[in-house]
């Protein structure tokens, strides 16, 4: 039986990932703010086979409280096999350009909070001698584009931190996966018109579970062909990126 904690468990991708894991009798701790939604998700996971589900209401932007939160989760589950860090917002780009306070709020929830959790969880898992940390980053962090560079920047730090940590942790029993989804049809993107490049949360969740089970560490793109798209975008000259 696996023991899994999900930070930001109401995220569409996190929920889809949890559904896959639930089939195997997994024990879950779900961390987030919206208690009603967490309760609904917990009930769903139980029907799908979860061994146990505990809801832990928590304000994840309260960075100072996170070390204790991680320790509590470790005690509750009696060790952590997989930790999924999924919280984050898709900010209003223009509002962030107009106000440094707004920008800081976004960085706190999208960047600082996950970075603290990654650090704490890595320590915890090193002392266990095993575990996998999954961090949801984004292809948007691969290059700064005028339309969404705040969101991109908030994820870019996670990508680089995670990439480095994964290498550092190699051979010490702890895996760290940086997941870079492309366009995914979730609550976060409900207002977008969907086209051929869009994937479902279920597809992304399934590929995360596959990667965790295969013991992968480092950066993965999902769906995989986004790696090619992003390679092209990373190599594209500035006059092209300006239009994106």
């Amino acid at each position, binding site marked *: 039986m696996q023991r899994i904690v999900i930070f930001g468990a109401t995220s569409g991708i996190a929920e889809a990932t949890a559904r896959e894991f639930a089939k195997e009798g997994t024990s879950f701790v779900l961390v987030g703010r919206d208690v*009603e*939604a967490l309760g*609904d*998700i917990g*009930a*769903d996971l139980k*029907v*799908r086979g979860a061994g146990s589900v505990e809801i832990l209401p928590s304000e994840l932007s309260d960075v100072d409280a996170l070390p204790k939160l991680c320790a509590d989760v470790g005690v509750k589950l009696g060790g952590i096999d997989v930790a999924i860090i999924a919280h984050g917002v898709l900010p209003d780009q223009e509002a962030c350009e107009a106000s440094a306070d707004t920008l800081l709020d976004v960085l706190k929830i999208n960047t600082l909070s996950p970075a603290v959790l990654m650090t704490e969880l890595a320590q915890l898992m090193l002392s266990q001698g095993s575990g996998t940390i999954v961090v949801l980053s984004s292809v948007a962090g691969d290059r700064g584009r005028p339309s969404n560079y705040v969101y991109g920047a908030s994820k870019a730090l996670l990508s680089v931190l995670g990439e480095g940590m994964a290498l550092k942790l190699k051979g010490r029993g702890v895996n760290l996966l940086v997941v870079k989804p492309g366009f995914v049809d979730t*609550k976060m993107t*409900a*207002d*977008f*018109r*969907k086209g051929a490049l869009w994937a479902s949360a279920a597809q992304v969740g399934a590929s995360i579970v596959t990667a965790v089970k295969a013991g992968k560490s480092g950066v993965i793109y999902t769906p995989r062909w986004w790696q090619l798209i992003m390679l092209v975008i990373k190599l594209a000259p500035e006059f092209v990126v300006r239009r994106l």
Partner: protein
Amino acid sequence: MQNETEVRRANWGNYPDEAQRLVSRRSRHESLAIEPGEMLLPYGAGRSYGDSCLNTGGVLLGTSALDRFIAFDRDTGLLTCEAGVALASIIELALPHGWFLPVTPGTKFVTLGGAIANDVHGKNHHVEGTLGRHVVSFELLTSDGVRRVCSASENTDLFAATIGGLGLTGLVTSATIRLKRVASPFLSGVSTKFDNLDAFFELSAAAAGTHEYTVSWIDCLSSGASLGRGIFMAANQASAEEAEAAGAKAPRSLPLFVPIMPPVSMVNQLTLKPFNWAYYHRQRAQQVTRLWHYNGFHYPLDAIAHWNRIYGPKGFLQYQCVVPTADQETVSRALLEEISRSGQGSFLVVFKTFGAKASPGLLSFPMEGATLALDFPIRGPSTFALLDRLDALVVEAGGRIYPAKDARMSGETFRRGYPKLEEFMKFVDPQFSSSFGRRVMRG
């Protein structure tokens, strides 16, 4: 409105194709928050063929995010889930524990909410009736902001109006259904070739007492002495021993799909005749015993994603009618003669008899008799005229047309087919409406 997108081709038949405003529900607890005068229609998977899942000029309440299970009792088979859960998800959850849908339509990609709103039937109608008979209860959210639990003992009139009520009585947010015990994912039975319509009715009557599932495919181009020839399939849930003895394994599903819409329908006079001939003659023996995986038996078309695209951009009409038992043989013959003479129609012609189990909904489609379902690529006015002629035969015999498949029947045809319409109208929510309802329900 927040969370709003514009969608095209929102129904399965691609006709009519009118832009729709789709607002996705975020949770089953969310209120409706309607603006005055705004007309709403619940929208599940968009698998209704015509305009019963469209609300042109109004708003579609998308339920794709209402896809959570709420409770499942593995001992009793009682399942409670949100209305946007697909039947495929229910099977995936329940089958490993020995449970299956008590009644299933020909695709598992519909939502439970949609299945209730259309009071769907399956190949076991003569044994289990419609799905509505297996719905224990549901929660209905109406435009006055009230949530009511409806069941056979609570809010019974709304229960009867909402089952088969085409989404017009409010939004079903969650429902409880009773699943059926099965011993394996397989069905065992026989596949029998028959030469004409009389032979079909003989086979059907004989199988009604011995087989839970019956259905037949018909060659809609055959005529004369072989009018109505086809292949009759009768099956029962296979026992675990039967499945094992036959070495049954779940077939590997190939990722088949129709990638793009061809510029014209691929179902036409050039392709139809050879296909039907080959399909009829593919089975050499008069009768063969078979073991089917449930996917192949119940959902053969689900194996081909976007199969509706083969009819091209003009779309297609599906036609499904039922004719009461008394006249089923003569009227079925007349219908098939009309279709055969027209040379229209398609590969996908399904014929079966419904049993006597009463449908629970005021607007439920099934009644005891013979039901015929087939596709027609839209070739212009001649297609519509043909279907009007079929309507006349059906209505004259006291039969009716299935709203889930319809995009063109007249208001009169609908009203004559559904005598409880007046009673139903009392339960229509004042802020719920559909393109179909506006077209046929008011005289």
